[in-house]
């Protein structure tokens, strides 16, 4: 039963996307909603991205410095490994898992509340394509803003490592800076940005699906919000595995 309902959910999600990904009725209204999405979903997420990235970046460097104590490995390895972790996985995947909680629950509860208070019915009655009007700007704005969040995350994550080196002195700041530049591949940044844009699409669209199909009352909106976070997290992890194998494997 649960398997069948999962298949039904996938079908409903695909049908919803078909309604969402169409040309907006009014481009000026789309742009208004797009800019709102940039601010509420993107700009409002910068602070959490910066705080988490800074501290995790610092902890990654600290952990690696403490655990790599072999005289066979040069100390700049700390910088190299920290950079690869931050660039390849932390700033895209782990950050998106966090954003699935913040942005995903926000989108699901906003659209879910509109559903149960008949605001979406009101849009439909007016002849507006409610799915397109409500969901498309959110997906577009979040996906478009994702590279900014990823770059912020990379920068503050590496800065966190820099500060910890400055405070503890092991490895030295010079060694760390040398490490984060050594064997650098620019393609990893593009890989990370592209991956996070894909995750951004998943986060916004899946959360919107759960909100749009919410039925009942406040309790169901809460459930929709929780479900969106859980499903988004699982999808991000699975897609990360597949994407990593396809892109780098």
């Amino acid at each position, binding site marked *: 039963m649960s398997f069948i309902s999962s298949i039904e959910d996938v079908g409903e999600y695909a049908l919803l996307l078909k309604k969402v990904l169409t040309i907006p009725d*009014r481009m000026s*209204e789309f742009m208004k909603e797009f800019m709102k999405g940039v601010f509420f979903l993107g700009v409002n997420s910068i602070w959490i991205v910066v705080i988490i990235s800074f501290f995790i970046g610092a902890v990654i460097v600290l952990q690696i410095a403490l655990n790599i104590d072999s005289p066979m490995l040069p100390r700049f390895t700390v910088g190299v490994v920290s950079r690869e972790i931050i660039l390849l996985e932390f700033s895209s995947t782990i950050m998106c898992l966090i954003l699935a909680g913040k942005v995903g629950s926000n989108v699901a509860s906003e659209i879910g509340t509109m559903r149960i*208070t008949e*605001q979406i019915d*009101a849009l439909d*009655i*007016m*002849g507006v394509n409610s799915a397109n009007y409500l969901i498309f700007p959110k997906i577009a704005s979040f996906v478009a803003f994702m590279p900014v969040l990823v770059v912020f995350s990379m920068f503050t994550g590496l800065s966190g490592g820099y500060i910890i080196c400055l405070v503890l002195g092991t490895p030295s700041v010079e060694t760390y800076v040398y490490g984060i530049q050594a064997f650098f591949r620019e393609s990893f940044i593009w890989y990370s940005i592209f991956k996070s844009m894909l995750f951004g699409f998943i986060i916004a669209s899946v959360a919107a699906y759960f909100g749009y199909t919410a039925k009942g009352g406040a309790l169901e909106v809460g459930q929709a919000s929780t479900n969106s976070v859980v499903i988004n997290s699982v999808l991000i992890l699975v897609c990360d595995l597949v994407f990593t194998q396809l892109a780098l494997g």
Partner: protein
Amino acid sequence: MIEVKNLRKEFDGEVVLDNINASFQNGMVNMIIGKSGSGKTVLLKCLVGLMAPTSGDIRYDGRNFVGLKSKEVRRLRRDIGMLFQGAALFDSRTVLENVMFPLDMFSRKNRRERKKRAEFCLERVNLLEAAHLYPSEISGGMKKRAAIARAIALNPKYLFCDEPNSGLDPKTSQLIDELIFDLTKDFSMTTIVVSHDMNSVINIGDKVIFINEGVKEWEGNKSEVMGTDNEKLNDFVFASDLFKKIKEAEEEKG
């Protein structure tokens, strides 16, 4: 005119509406009445396309609404205004922005003209002074009036009202009823009101349809409602002590 032919609606095999036939005339307030759970809101949702009927036809001026493509449905819906039970105003927009919304989406007029039209609609429902307020800052009656202003912004041919008086005091209810009646006459709309409030029926109902357990039980005008010999309708109408006493007083008068 809206015509309904052999309409049937089932949910998981359970029949909620069965063989509904009715016609709703232009320039008239058509009331659909019945007990809670009788199927009247489902009928309204079928009429506006929020629910697909299991079988039957719904014709808007001869054009069958059932089976239209989604683009055609959306085009037809621009002729429809609807007042929801909870008003369904957009929380993030002011009252004026709510009324301007359908105009922003579909009107070809410039912004100044759209604003003028929205203000005209708000003035018509006597709510211009609350134009700058958000829905959370106004009362239930004001929300209903704002929702009516939004519903008439695009000059609809058809107006649907779902329980317009629910949660309102008698005085405000009467105000909303009169507003619906006046707008129907002024703009010659086909208005369909779902209600279980007998005061509304007596105040504004040009035509009355009584739904009982998913079946159309009775049809007539408001003057016939009080004198009907339909047992189920009598049960419904005279469930209220006030109406019982009015009837007794009329019978005593002879």
